């Protein structure tokens, strides 16, 4: 039945002019898409140049240390150091955050979740994925 419907639809094909319009639309449309993305793709290396031009001044003197040379442990060490440094700056703020995170353990809107926790207390959710 589906096939019949489709067949019948194709049979009563629209006149040539409509198809011509469709073909032209397709040509212009496909052309514009290609031209647009082509111009974009040739302009992206320019973007890179502009960006590098700015960076060049910064790294002119010494050779930039490529991060690729860092070992996993060095990465961890640096991250921790930066973390600790910034932590000190933000200490008071963090304290407040920590503090307030536990501020209202029996809020009414958290009750539903809490009662579920009580039910599921000793069980873990099994996830199939």
């Amino acid at each position, binding site marked *: 039945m589906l096939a019949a419907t489709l067949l019948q639809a194709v049979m009563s094909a629209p006149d040539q002019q409509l198809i011509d319009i*469709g073909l032209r639309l*397709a040509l212009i449309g496909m052309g514009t898409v290609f031209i647009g993305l*082509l111009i*974009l*793709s040739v302009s*992206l290396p320019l973007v890179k140049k502009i*960006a590098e031009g700015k960076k060049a001044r910064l790294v002119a003197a010494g050779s930039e240390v490529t991060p690729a040379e860092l070992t996993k442990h060095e990465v961890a060490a640096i991250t921790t150091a930066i973390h600790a440094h910034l932590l000190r700056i933000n200490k008071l703020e963090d304290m407040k955050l920590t503090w307030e995170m536990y501020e209202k353990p029996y809020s009414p809107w958290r009750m539903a979740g809490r009662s579920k926790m009580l039910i599921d207390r000793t069980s873990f959710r099994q996830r199939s994925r």
Partner: protein
Amino acid sequence: MILATRLLTALTANTGELNLSNVNFASYLGDSGFGQIEIGNVIMIIMGIVMIYLAIKKDYEPLLLIPIGFGIIAGNMPYNPDLIPIGYLDVLGGQQSVFKMFYFGVSSGLFPPLIFLGIGAMTDFSALLSNPKLLLLGAAAQIGIFITLLGSLFLGFNIQEAAAIGIIGGADGPTAIFVASQMAPHLLGAIAIAAYSYMGLVPVIQPPIMRLLTTDEERRRKMKPTRHVSQTEKILFPIIAFFITAFIAPGAITLLGMLFFGNLLKESGVTRRLADSAQGSLNNIVVILLGFSVGTSTQARYFLTTDSIKIFVLGALSFAIATAGGVLFAKFMNLFLKGDNKLNPLVGAAGVSAVPDSARVVEVEGRKYDKSNHLLMHAMAPNVAGVIGSAIAAGVLLSMVPH
């Protein structure tokens, strides 16, 4: 006497047609699901359940299929539209239904640009910046749009309808909805459902076509690792890309403007909180309402038509053609590329967009033939280019076809 008159007036004026004989359980049941259910509703509800099942079990685009699936169920639960406005088109006594108010975001074209804002704020264009020639794969895959447009004309749709149906081949839900809302609002439901369904089914539709059109050797080909992209490049990209694309296809200003605006919020480094909300809560809220609304717009009485069937057939066709277009164009490009610059043609399939599912399909297919071959990063480039490409195509159609 006066009291009686007052009461009579009250009864007739205030309770409308309510009278004792109407208020009985049989009449109530007649207006409930028991009296209102139709076979069409049942079919649609089963379709909604299948979508939810696929989303949860198979992980096919759950963020879209679950809202749409439940929306289909909610939109097809039987009710008497003369008593209370519920459906997405209902207005009764000046009161719009809530589903109609939700649907306004779809029918007005408001939601798609907001989704694009969120997509921009969560998309990393590094892969594309790293290998600009892959942009062309995203262009090639848009052939699906225009062949479907021609096919729709053959099946008897008018030019506006054909344009809107064609955009399904762009494999971009929001773009399809945006174009349909302007060009062919009466087909919006079917077009949206088709677009999102096939986006969910990308892992089913694409692989056979990809295998058909490539040799074993091609599928095993490894590509050069992508280069590191600097932050300045990433900041410049959305602005320059918007200039070029909007200049060439002004009809795409709304969609691409929001896409690149979102991306600038992400990459600028000084508007983190805006980018977070654009891709977080705002995006989630719009996804919920858009998906659910699209679902409710499949009320059987309007949706189950031969037009819908044709649209589904054309949609499947367009996805297949788009995939083939991308893969074949990659092979065509290889004629001009040498050595390790040659492309793995599988990557072309990601040009249909359906971000990021089709890129994932490429990765999975590639690794079937060589466990160590990671194509994901390379596939992301045509993938996001496909989004831009179908927005340009939409812009051209919106400009050229009067509506």
